[in-house]
């Protein structure tokens, strides 16, 4: 479905030093610098897959998404999406995709979302009976019956996002580009949006690419993740593989009977956190079963969990390793 080879996007930006003198100087002579937003990305994505783009701010996630959807011309490299060169923005290609951006909206602000849907129906040339059927299905799945008839400006952020999704999906796209779709939403709304996206992917067999800062989104939705930093691909695989590679430790969460925390827990592993009658230990994967046996034998334990470290921490470690390596590279080359 998606083939990306050595994709690059460089921008020229003008830099200006602070201060009045420098500003005056910049009026006549500006300093140009090159920003490498995407710097040699290569990956393939098969049809019907759900893939997450992860990376810090300025990593190149959105730029990549914009090149895949045809909004940006690549500086070099190859992008092929379902047999199309996206930047040509051919009608056939545009009818297959949608881009949903959590921070921007396409709904007509002063009118009910139904008007935007009607406009999209005409633009995407969806036949009226098909439109009615899809609208009915989307209304039920997203639970937006009354909201579709309320002016968009009067809807809550979550309701608006649901209507945005309905407006984007009315032509049954095969390929969904979702840029931070749950940004600013409360936990239960995030859950609703996630479940809807997953069910759409499963029912329609649509390919889905998601960028998000919200690790829960990515963990819940994407069996495969691509980690990007400074425009380069740092990792391509599953969340479990990423954790095993970057931070292979496990975390044991313990809650003790009588809410009393025993002493010398350090003997079993590194104590990451403690609370009233509870503690979290971190230890190597291979030690987990042995230590669990010892803990259960020695202490009265009410509750016990074994988990991977949080994805945020894993990512943090990955990016700091990458930054360190880049620094090393830089020092060697100078």
């Amino acid at each position: 479905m998606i083939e990306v080879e050595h994709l690059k996007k460089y921008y020229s930006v003008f830099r200006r030093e602070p201060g009045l003198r420098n500003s005056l100087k910049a009026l006549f002579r500006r300093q140009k610098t090159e920003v490498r937003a995407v710097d040699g990305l290569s990956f393939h994505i098969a049809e019907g897959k759900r893939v997450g783009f992860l990376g810090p701010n300025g990593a190149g996630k959105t730029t990549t998404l914009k090149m895949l959807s045809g909004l940006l011309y690549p500086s070099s490299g190859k992008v092929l999406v379902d047999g199309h060169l996206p930047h040509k923005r051919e009608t056939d290609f545009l009818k297959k995709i949608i881009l949903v951006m959590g921070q921007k909206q396409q709904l007509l602000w002063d009118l009910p979302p139904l008007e935007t849907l009607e406009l999209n129906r005409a633009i995407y040339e969806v036949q009226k009976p098909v439109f009615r059927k899809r609208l009915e299905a989307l209304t039920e799945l997203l639970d937006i019956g009354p909201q579709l008839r309320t002016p968009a400006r009067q809807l809550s952020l979550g309701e608006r996002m649901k209507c945005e999704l309905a407006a984007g999906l009315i032509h049954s796209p095969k390929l969904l580009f979702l840029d931070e779709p749950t940004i600013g939403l409360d936990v239960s709304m995030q859950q609703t949006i996630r479940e809807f996206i997953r069910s759409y992917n499963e029912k329609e067999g649509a390919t889905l690419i998601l960028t998000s800062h919200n690790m829960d989104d990515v963990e819940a939705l994407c069996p495969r993740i691509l980690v990007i930093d400074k425009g380069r691909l740092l990792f391509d695989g599953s969340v479990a593989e990423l954790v095993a590679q970057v931070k292979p430790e496990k975390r044991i969460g313990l809650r003790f009977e009588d809410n009393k925390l025993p002493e010398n827990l350090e003997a079993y592993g590194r104590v990451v956190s403690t609370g009233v009658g509870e503690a979290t230990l971190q230890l190597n994967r291979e030690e987990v079963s042995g230590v669990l046996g010892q803990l259960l034998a020695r202490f009265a334990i009410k509750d016990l969990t074994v988990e991977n470290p949080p994805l945020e921490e894993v990512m943090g470690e990955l990016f700091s390793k990458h930054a360190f390596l880049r620094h090393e590279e830089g020092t060697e080359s100078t």
Partner: protein
Amino acid sequence: MSGILRHLGVSMWRYLKLLGIQLKASLLLSMQYRADFFIDAVISMFWAVTAIAPLWVVYGERVGGQISGWSLGEAMLVVGCFIFLQAVLEGVIQPSLQTVVEHIRKGTLDFVLLKPADAQFLVSTARFQPWKASNFLASGVIFGVAFARLEVWPSLGNLAQGALLLVVATGLLYSLWIWVVSAAFVVVKVNNLTFLLSAILDVGRWPVGVFRGVLRWVFTFVIPTALMTTFPAQALLGVLSWAEFRLVIVCAVVFAIVSRWVWLRSIRYYTSASS
């Protein structure tokens, strides 16, 4: 050949339907602001009077009642064309193209560019202000008063030619506005530029004959206010030559081609430079 014609017919039908839906959305939007209609009606009548007032002052001073060969009634026809174009500008062109500037500023032009329809069409028809229709009424009133004053009524042929030239003038005005809006891709804040263009277009309320030398040339070929207001008025009076008629058509076609080219270049600039 028939295949191409059929394809063209299907495309036109599709875009007409799209235009209908965009118009409906604008109407729905305007219904929410009904008070605007009455305010606009009063304001447009006020502007119509202020547009004619200078003519009275200038003609009142003149002995013989002619300026550069134009009588007061004839000059009022030019003002009628000017008010008509102002109505088109304020009701049809400006609201839509103002939304492009907003789109660029907010980054939502991305949604327009990803729609499987011509982006220039979508943004140019995004917003109408039907309440500004009162300006058309004002121009109609001025035409009526002017002809009553002249004590002649245009022939059907002159009326048709004048009406056609006003439609062509609308195209010219739209092309000029596309140039200004295209500047928004580079400078983002184009308000000053639109004010400047509005001020320049203001000279369209005078018959081009009052200008001499370079100015007359500039207002005919560079910022063609003469073609937009003086020539249609001359057509209504039945004094426009075929050469002048052809000049308006050729200029409108050239302006349309150049404005399309400028628009496409701007979109290309947007898609290669933004992030």
